[in-house]
């Protein structure tokens, strides 16, 4: 039978100190639930840097290409017009007046593409159930989740190590 420990702290610094201590003993911390981002916790518990910014850049580049392609088709290829003596017969001559829309469309694609990716990767979508172990973790409490299935230490040793930290509450549940 595997066990899951939910260790609650009442301060972000206490949790960070505890995480550092436990990781030093070779404990793997599964997850941390907090009401706000705890700066500096990621390297301790082994959370890698996100690549969302790269994704956003690629979405923006897609938007830029689509905008230029579209304007080339509408204004140059399909129906060139002579507007106020400024004919639109080549993309090169017209590119200055295409810059604003190209920029706006790149931003549109970059921002929305990233936002959608972010929500999908998080699994946070309308109607999804919340999975924080305790409702107080969105208020002022901080919970560290440790499972026996991802640790080499057995439940007793884990419990002993956890109890040495400055915890507030500890809940142990059996999971399959």
């Amino acid at each position, binding site marked *: 039978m595997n066990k899951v420990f939910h260790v609650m702290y009442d301060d972000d610094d206490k949790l960070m100190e505890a995480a550092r201590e436990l990781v030093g003993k070779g404990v793997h911390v599964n997850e941390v639930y907090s009401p706000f981002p705890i700066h500096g916790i990621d390297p301790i*518990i082994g959370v890698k840097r996100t690549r969302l910014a790269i994704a956003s850049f690629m979405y923006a580049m897609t938007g830029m290409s689509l905008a230029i392609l579209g304007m080339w088709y509408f204004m140059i290829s399909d129906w060139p017009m002579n507007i106020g003596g*400024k004919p639109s017969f080549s993309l090169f001559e017209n590119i200055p007046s295409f810059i604003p829309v190209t920029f706006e469309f790149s931003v549109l694609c970059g921002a929305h593409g990233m936002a959608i990716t972010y929500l999908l990767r998080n699994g*946070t979508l309308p109607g999804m159930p919340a999975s924080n172990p305790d*409702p107080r973790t969105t208020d002022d409490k901080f919970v560290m989740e440790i499972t026996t299935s991802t640790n080499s230490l057995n439940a007793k040793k884990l419990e002993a190590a956890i109890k040495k930290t400055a915890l507030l509450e500890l809940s142990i549940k059996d999971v399959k």
Partner: protein
Amino acid sequence: MQRESAIREPLILGHKTYKDITDDVVGPITGPAHIGWKILITISSIIALYGVGCILYLLGTGIGVWGLNKTVGWAWDITNFVWWVGIGHAGTLISAVLLLFRQKWRMAINRSAEAMTIFAVIMAAVFPGIHMGRIWVSYWVLPLPNQFGSLWVNFNSPLLWDVFAISTYFSVSLVFWYIGLIPDFATIRDRVVKPLPKKIYSILSFGWSGRAKHWTRFEEVSLVLAGIATPLVFSVHSIVSMDFATSVIPGWHTTIFPPYFVSGAVFSGFAMVQTLMLIMRKAYKLEAYIHVKHVEYMNIVIIVTGSIVGVAYLTELFISWYSGVEYESYAFINRFSGPYSVAYWTMMTCNVISPQLFWFKKIRRSLIATFILSIVVNIGMWFERYVIIVTSLHRDYLPSSWGEFYPTAIDIGIFIGTIGIFSTLFLMFTRFFPVLALNELKTILKSSGESYKNQLDK
């Protein structure tokens, strides 16, 4: 842990804990509505309904119900549009530009300033929409395949750039705002007891649980969105200014317009933020979070942008004479001495002189003076757009076609109506949404909270 100099004024006053922050913000949402809120929302909904009525009358009859004529073909409609878009800019500036500069004081005001942005941009979008007259063909502004050729929209026109700029600006601001709101909705979800609000907030919070990886992504998304919203906000008002600057009307045809409009927008936007925040902090008892220091910081932004606007006015005036172009000079002589000189001098007094009062520390840190001056600035900025638009149009190259513009009751009704709709939306926001960015404020409590700072000194 991040430390801050002890001589810096704390941003969160009093001995607040994380729980206090939650209680102070979520308390008013879960509790019953205040009587003052009920009175205000009743008044603003009545004004909003009157505005909607005027809009429907306009759509049913045609834009002839406005005071426009063949000489002045653009007046209150575009004035109101530019005014509302300008107001919107402060929200993005606070949340994006100040985020990039790591200004912690923005955290107390960014949520409501962004809400203000979104509502202001909605109000702005009303005007070009109804100005089309036949709003049911407004989809013609999009490059859609059609049966006229296909005849495409003109991508060389700043008016079309506006379509892309405003819609991008609106949707990106909305996404930026909502992504910040998700964790705070989760806080409310975990605290409300009644089943229906719980259900609603649980849908709104998208199942947010506050996992470490999600927070990393959250911060990255906020940073990147701020990074791309910053050039966006500058581009939007530059494009709005190009609606005028690329034309050949004296008084509009000036290269100074983009930076001048952008700083004017920030100027009026901050004034509106002051007006709203000063009421909100009192009504929702947020004095510990939005206090004199925040007001002072915003007033400094108002001095800077107000002075840029003042310099721009004087530059315009000088260049109109220095250019030697008689049409250009006349446009400006006509502005300050013609039939609309009252509007011009109102604009000059409200926008150039009044913000200079903030050089005095007493005035800058006085809440009452700030409140009055913020309203003065907003009036001035409305007149600025009116002066630019109407005085330039009403007398141009051909004296035989000179004319004047007088607003009709419908002009006034729609403008007042949009203020009503805006107030209604903003009041709904303050009642049901977390008005402070809870998750962000909690991150600065230890570095900028009063009690924690004092602990560090000992």
